[in-house]
């Protein structure tokens, strides 16, 4: 009888115990079965709920309770904070909670001390939670797992479970990587203890891949205030998501900063990231406030966190970038013109020289304003903008080729550019060319030719600028312009610094003609660009150029310098010009309808023993990484001189070829010549506004890519490749 009593009591105890935790099963899983001292092992507390039962997130919301884990760890093992996978928003609307349905694995990094002795370690934890369906029940369970300490790391059979849940933990916000920018502000002043908060995320790329249905914000928990569950969608366009939340204050001041998880829901898995945002008093005040990531865990070789850089530093980068542009290959021919200008001017009145320096600067600045306006316009129209994008337009290339050839002919003395249309002697011509209009034109030309180049500093600054609001874009472009123009303005103020140059004289005419040749080389380069768009018919552009040159000679020889029948000569020149345009450009070249090459797949090898380049696409990229190859990506463009120089000196070279082969790497070539949208998107993801961008993706498919600098050396490339297989 007594025995039955004991059994009954035992049964009751058991019943009571299972009832209190009947709806959730808990167990502990580890990412590794054996680990080395000094390793960090990821532990997963796996909670499996019965259908319709749920447990809660770190901020349970209006009700509920976050799951707690109390570790009982042997000495030398330290548990970190819980990493919470993205929860679901649970109804009802009036008491919104955040929690997990069916199953969740809460992840905790366990740091192993370096002096741990080999052998098994018993890891234990007490887990307590609140499980709710119609009613709520507190639950608890003791879990344990064994980890071996040894001299090599062996992943456990549960590693895949842990990895799949780790993917669901919202990453800390990195504006630079995601090309997202966020801000928050109070929409209304306090109405008693509630206020309305607007949270906005704008991006250059976010939803290139999937349409967005809605966005949401799951706040971190706070005792002082509550960001309530209801979310009102304000806008979900391709570039901006914004939403309205009601905030109730319990005590203290209104928060200056909020934190939580921003969720963008489209088709498939939602995108979510954790962010800490300052809250501005109103929209204008927060115009350019960049988000402040709570913890920046940059890989050591990553680009700086652009979005958190102060504006003044970015402006400084833009200025330095502009300065450096002066010695980049694209702008060199214009330098020739400028040097000549200075020599010519050195005779004249210093006031005049200064004026010309300023007019040149004005030409540069006006051109940059126009560029900025175009970028802002293109962005406002919902398209993506990039540095040098005008070179993606064949029509622009044809016009520029013609213009640069005319500049060369002008330097050769075939014709003069004069304001009054009068022929002048050589010296006078020089002076007039470097009059106000000439100086302004030089400024414009320098800018136009500078755009296919990016210089060190400039790419960082532009990457930042292209993701900003209109006023900042304008300011950044002006800073580049000021940098580009600065040396000439300074020199025109102090012509004495140019004393090393010889005195003006007959040599100048020869120098002028000599400088026509780099200009002609530029024309040939542009002509080659056009060939990419028109294929074999580019011949007709050549024919057109010859006709224009002929017309220019007739104009110079018989109209400007001629004595009789000027009218006839003018008419002939005009006929050549119009006829050349109508026949060669319009009817034969069909210059406004360029042929677009079909995207070919397969190798883009440049020579028999060259790198086996494959065409870049997001799919090719994903496949190469999934197959476990290290990947070298070169985003380049025919018009990008920096890219061509990089390729010749540091990429398409025997040592790199051999290295790529030996590490079984895939080489992907992204051709930005005609400005395809998917590459713009990819560039923006790395906060770049243009090419070059060279990336090395490590073999480990989860590792971050190594971003190489703008100007490469063989050492930089080889070193990055080395690190990719390490």
């Amino acid at each position, binding site marked *: 009888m007594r025995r039955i009593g004991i059994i009954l009591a035992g049964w009751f105890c058991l019943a009571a115990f299972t009832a209190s935790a009947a709806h959730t099963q808990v167990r502990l899983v580890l990412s590794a079965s054996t680990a080395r001292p000094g390793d960090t092992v990821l532990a997963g507390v796996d909670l499996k709920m019965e259908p319709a039962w749920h447990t809660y997130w770190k901020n349970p919301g*209006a*009700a*509920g*309770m976050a799951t707690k884990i109390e570790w009982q760890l042997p000495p030398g093992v330290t548990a970190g904070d819980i990493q919470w996978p993205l929860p679901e928003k649970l109804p*009802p*609307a*009036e*008491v919104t*909670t955040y929690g997990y349905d069916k199953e969740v694995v809460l992840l905790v990094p366990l740091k192993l001390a370096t002096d741990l002795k080999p052998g098994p370690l018993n890891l234990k934890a007490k887990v*307590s939670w*609140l499980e*709710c369906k*119609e*009613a*709520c*029940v*507190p639950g608890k369970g003791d879990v344990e797992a064994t980890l071996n300490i040894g001299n090599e790391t062996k992943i456990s059979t549960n590693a895949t479970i842990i990895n799949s849940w780790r993917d669901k933990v919202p990453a800390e916000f990195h504006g630079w990587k995601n090309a997202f920018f966020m801000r928050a502000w109070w929409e209304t002043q306090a*109405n*008693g*203890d*509630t206020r309305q908060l607007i949270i906005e995320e704008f991006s250059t790329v976010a939803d290139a891949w999937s349409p967005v249905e809605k966005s949401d914000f799951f706040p971190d928990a*706070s*005792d002082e205030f*509550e960001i*309530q569950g*209801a*979310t*009102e*969608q304000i806008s979900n366009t391709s570039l901006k998501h914004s939403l*309205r939340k*009601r905030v109730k*204050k*319990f*005590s203290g001041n209104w928060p200056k900063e909020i934190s939580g998880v921003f969720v963008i829901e489209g088709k498939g898995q939602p995108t979510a990231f954790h962010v800490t945002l300052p809250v501005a008093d109103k929209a204008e005040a927060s115009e350019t406030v960049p988000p402040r990531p709570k913890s920046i865990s940059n890989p050591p070789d990553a680009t700086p966190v652009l979005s958190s850089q102060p504006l003044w530093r970015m402006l400084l980068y833009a200025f330095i970038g502009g300065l450096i542009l002066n010695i980049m290959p694209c702008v060199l021919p214009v330098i020739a013109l400028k040097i000549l200008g200075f020599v010519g001017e050195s005779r004249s009145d210093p006031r005049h020289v200064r004026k010309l320096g300023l007019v040149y600067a004005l030409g540069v600045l006006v051109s940059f304003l126009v560029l900025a306006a175009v970028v802002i316009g293109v962005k406002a129209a919902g398209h993506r903008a990039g540095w040098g994008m005008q070179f993606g337009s064949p029509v622009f290339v044809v016009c520029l080729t013609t213009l640069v050839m005319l500049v060369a002919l002008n330097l050769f003395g075939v014709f003069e550019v004069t304001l009054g249309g009068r022929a002048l002697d050589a010296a006078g011509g020089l002076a007039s060319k470097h009059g106000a209009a000439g100086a302004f034109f030089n400024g414009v030309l320098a800018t136009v030719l500078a755009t296919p180049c990016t210089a060190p500093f400039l790419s960082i600054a532009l990457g930042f600028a292209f993701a900003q609001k209109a006023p900042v874009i304008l300011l950044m472009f002006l800073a580049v312009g000021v940098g580009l123009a600065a040396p000439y303005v300074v020199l025109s103020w102090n012509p004495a610094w140019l004393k090393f140059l010889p005195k003006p004289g007959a040599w100048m005419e020869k120098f002028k003609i000599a400088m026509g040749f780099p200009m002609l080389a530029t024309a040939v380069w542009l002509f080659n660009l056009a060939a990419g768009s028109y294929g074999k018919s580019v011949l007709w552009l050549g024919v057109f150029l010859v006709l224009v040159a002929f017309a220019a000679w007739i104009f110079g020889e018989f109209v400007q310098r001629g004595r009789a029948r000027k009218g006839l000569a003018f008419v002939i020149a005009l006929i050549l010009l119009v006829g050349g345009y109508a026949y060669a450009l319009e009817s034969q070249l069909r210059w406004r309808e360029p042929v677009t090459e079909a995207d070919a797949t397969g190798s883009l090898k440049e020579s028999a023993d060259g790198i086996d380049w494959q065409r870049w696409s997001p799919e090719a990229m994903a496949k190469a990484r999934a197959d476990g190859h290290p990947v070298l990506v070169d985003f380049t463009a025919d018009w990008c001189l920096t890219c061509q120089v990089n390729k010749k000196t540091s990429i398409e070279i025997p040592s790199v070829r051999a290295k790529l082969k030996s590490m079984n790497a895939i080489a992907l070539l992204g051709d930005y010549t005609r400005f395809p949208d998917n590459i713009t998107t990819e560039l923006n993801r790395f906060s770049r506004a243009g090419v070059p961008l060279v990336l090395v993706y490590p073999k480990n498919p989860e590792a971050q890519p190594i971003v190489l600098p703008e100007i490469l050396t063989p050492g930089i490339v080889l070193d990055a490749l080395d690190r990719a297989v390490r």
Partner: protein
Amino acid sequence: MIKLMKTTFALFTALTLASAAFAVEIGKPAPDFTATDINGKTVKLSDYKGKIVVLESYNSDCPFCNNQYKTGAMQELQSDLASKGVVWLLVNSVNPNNSSHRTPDQAKKEMADKKIIATAWIDDNSGAVGHLYGMKTTPHMFVVDKTGTLVYDGAIDNKPDPMHDPRTARNYVREAMDALIAGKPVPVAQTKPYGCGVKYAN
């Protein structure tokens, strides 16, 4: 159709936000209500003008709420306040389809079993009073002073845990009451309520 659904959703959200705007506010008159208690008696808040009133959002199946009663801490507070002439109204907004719903007879038995000392147990199965006050959780506490002004809205104490000993926690209702009786301003007028969500009818 999808557009219509979206519009409806937006409207719904806006309404939810708007209704939240009508929720009670500290320092403003507590909204009056008329309700029925488990004995069928009519309870009107304004009838208690001149007395301090405590409103408690109640559901004893909720472990947070139950913790206050099974430890006896809540009854101690109720008895102490009753002796000082304070009115205590239990508001049970659990909908009739929920397993935690109590019929008047079950409620009378539960009140006796748990030795709850309350002026009235309001049967709010429609959720009218709960929604009027924006009651989020069980327990969610409100204190109305003698002039009918709301002076406290929030949690019972500072330990959002269903297993703690409430006597070791900082009880905000007791603090508010002590201040009111001493004629001082309430030190903490608002906190974030914790507990289980109120099981309103859908």
